């Protein structure tokens, strides 16, 4: 932290000011002039929270993507299909058993299994051939998309939110003060907060697993130098299968999340593949903290954009990607 301030005093100052301004925007009661200029505080706070929770969903998809890339140098363009597959599995389970939690577990296990099959049957056969792997995953994503269209049709599915999660809760954030002096608190959908918390927990658990456990150490070593790691006697193929299963399983969980607060339909696979590509390009390929930061930035940009500049909202995310590619092509938090 201090090293960062010493090395980049100007950037540090800008970041501190930005943080201070956003904290003030979140906690202070807005003066009337500001409300006239940029709209009501409720809208701003909602957009901010939505951006953060959407970032949570993007993180779930992108973390698996970036993990697989980091270890195996394999750009898995069928990742979006795994997302959609997980979502459909989650829908089937929640519709037949009525259990939302069970939907997550089964979706995780089944997509992880698909991931294992992909790794064992496809990627192991063409190890180290980046281009071939990329082409094969594009092909697979098209095949999967058509198979899912055949099985589930073009209808859109929504996973039923469990009753205890429906409706809003009041957060201790004041959005306005009524003329009687009574404060109005922010009401926010509970399900989004729960999903966000879950993705934070998953993120922290992944970070701990990578940095504090033996298997995490092996994975990190594999990211740095696969060949040396294999030479030390680690059975690298098993590590690959494990990581692929985890990454795919996370995409499956994300599918259930996406099916709960958005909806599932053909085309969602491509949308989430694109989103996770943008997220990891912004954050840095292969970096978990990078995926978290990238997901947060893209989520916020989409939501704040949709409120404040609706016409150009779609462009904003790509603009960010272009800027990052121009100024820091390796990504914001890349290791090298």
């Amino acid at each position, binding site marked *: 932290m201090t090293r960062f301030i010493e090395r980049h005093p100007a950037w540090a100052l800008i970041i501190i000011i930005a943080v201070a301004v956003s904290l003030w925007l979140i906690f202070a009661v807005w003066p009337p002039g500001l409300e006239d200029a940029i*709209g009501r505080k*409720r*809208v701003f*706070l*909602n*957009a901010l929270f*939505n*951006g953060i*929770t*959407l970032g949570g969903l993007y993180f779930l998809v992108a973390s698996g993507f970036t993990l697989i890339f980091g270890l195996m140098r394999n750009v898995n363009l069928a990742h979006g299909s795994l997302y959609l597959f997980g979502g459909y599995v989650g829908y089937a389970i929640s*519709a037949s058993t009525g259990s939302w939690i069970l939907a997550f577990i089964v979706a995780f296990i089944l997509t992880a299994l698909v991931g294992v099959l992909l790794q064992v049957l496809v990627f192991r056969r063409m190890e180290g051939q980046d281009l071939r792997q990329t082409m094969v995953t594009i092909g697979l994503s098209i095949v999967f998309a058509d198979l899912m269209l055949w099985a589930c*049709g*073009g*209808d*859109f*599915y*929504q996973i*039923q*939110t469990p009753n205890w999660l*429906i*409706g*809003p809760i009041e957060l201790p954030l004041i959005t306005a003060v009524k003329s009687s002096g009574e404060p109005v608190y922010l*009401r*926010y*959908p*509970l*399900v*989004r907060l729960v999903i966000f918390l879950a993705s934070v927990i998953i993120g922290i658990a992944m970070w701990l697993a990578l940095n504090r456990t033996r298997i995490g150490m092996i994975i990190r070593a594999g990211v740095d130098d696969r060949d040396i790691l294999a030479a030390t006697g680690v059975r690298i193929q098993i590590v690959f299968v494990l990581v692929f299963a985890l990454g795919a399983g996370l995409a499956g969980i994300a599918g259930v999340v996406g099916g709960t*607060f*958005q*909806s599932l*339909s*053909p*085309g969602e696979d491509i*949308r989430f593949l694109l989103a996770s590509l943008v997220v990891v390009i912004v954050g840095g390929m292969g970096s978990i903290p990078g995926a978290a930061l990238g997901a947060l930035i893209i989520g916020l940009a*989409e*939501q*704040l954009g*949709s*409120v404040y500049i*609706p*016409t150009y*909202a*779609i462009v904003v995310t790509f603009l960010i990607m272009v800027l990052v590619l121009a100024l820091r092509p390796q990504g914001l938090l890349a290791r090298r």
Partner: protein
Amino acid sequence: MLKGSLGLIALSSLLLSGTAFAQEKIKVGVTATLEGTYTVLGEDGIRGFQTALNVLGKKVGDKELEFVIASTDATPDSAVRAVRKLIEQDKVQILLSPLSGDEGIAVKNFAKTHPELTFINAASGAQETTYVDPAPNFFRYNMDGAQWQVGLGKYAYETKGYRKIATVGEDYSFIYTQVFGLVLEFCGAGGQVTNRQWVPLGTKDFASVIAALPDDVDAIYLGLGGADAVNFLNQYQQAGGKAHLMGGSIMIDQTILSSKGNAKQALVGTLAASGQADTWEDPGWQKFVKDYQDAFPPNKRFPSPSLLATNYYGSTMALILALRQVNGDLSDNQSKYKAALAKIELDAPNGKIKLDANRQAIGTNFVTEVVDDGKGALFSKVVKVIPNVNQTLGYDPAVFAKIGLPSRTVPECKKY
């Protein structure tokens, strides 16, 4: 050797039969949005089309109709691509296309490059398609989005007592046209439209849009369709929304009313207007509903046909009946057929339909309210039937022209 000669015989017989039937076939290309946000709408459109074929049959005199279906995704370029493929590769002579507003404008413009062919609009409802620089070979047997809103504004103002409303709609021509019709009538009656929000087609995350809805209005009008509408309702429920709702023609429609999940319950009591009403008692409508229900097993259709099914049914009806009037004669650049299409008066399930000078439908409109049938299924119930709605919505054409074309901000909220 034996295999080879067998293959040759099979091939030559195929060729022979091909030439033998060639003169007796009329090829028709159909497009529908079978991909993307409006997939469900496209699928039900095709069901309406098939219901029409079941009822009317595929024979025209001694000729047989042959259909080729192509898929689009509600974007104009996908529609033009599909239509071009149907014309150039499949050599169709008549087109039944397209489904969605922006597609309609693009296909109408494309129709001008093929004046020898006939284009029959399947279901699209942007005003511009037939109002601005219409193509002489493009015929539309459904009303446009503004016609489909006739009656709604007045009913909301006078009967429901709404004074101030806000709108949320998808950002493209059909919804512009719908909001155009609503605003014109509601503001004409004395109401106020305080805020118009536009979201891109295919928006998934509406949470911020929902947060930005104003609280100080009597009702919120939703001009959304397909997956967008379902996503909106789901998130609206999660956010605990409680406002009165009003709906556009594809919002209050079986495509949404019979979607899975319970978010649609928010729509009970919602006012809407459309070219049809699910519970209309007219025998023609009831017969159509029965034909539709009989044509497909219950899990492969909606409880009652959607607006898209009805539009595809009506358009297919016009296509076949006019073709029968000229006995399948498509000679002389299909001129006899086009003349028959322009003159034909349809006894469509949703009321009588005839065309104006721009080949745009004049038809019947319905103001509806959403009701629960007691078993959890939602239907739109008729509260008012308005016959003979034309494209200028009863305005003098000169006055109507001054209002301007539907867009994000047109018309202004005032009395014209």
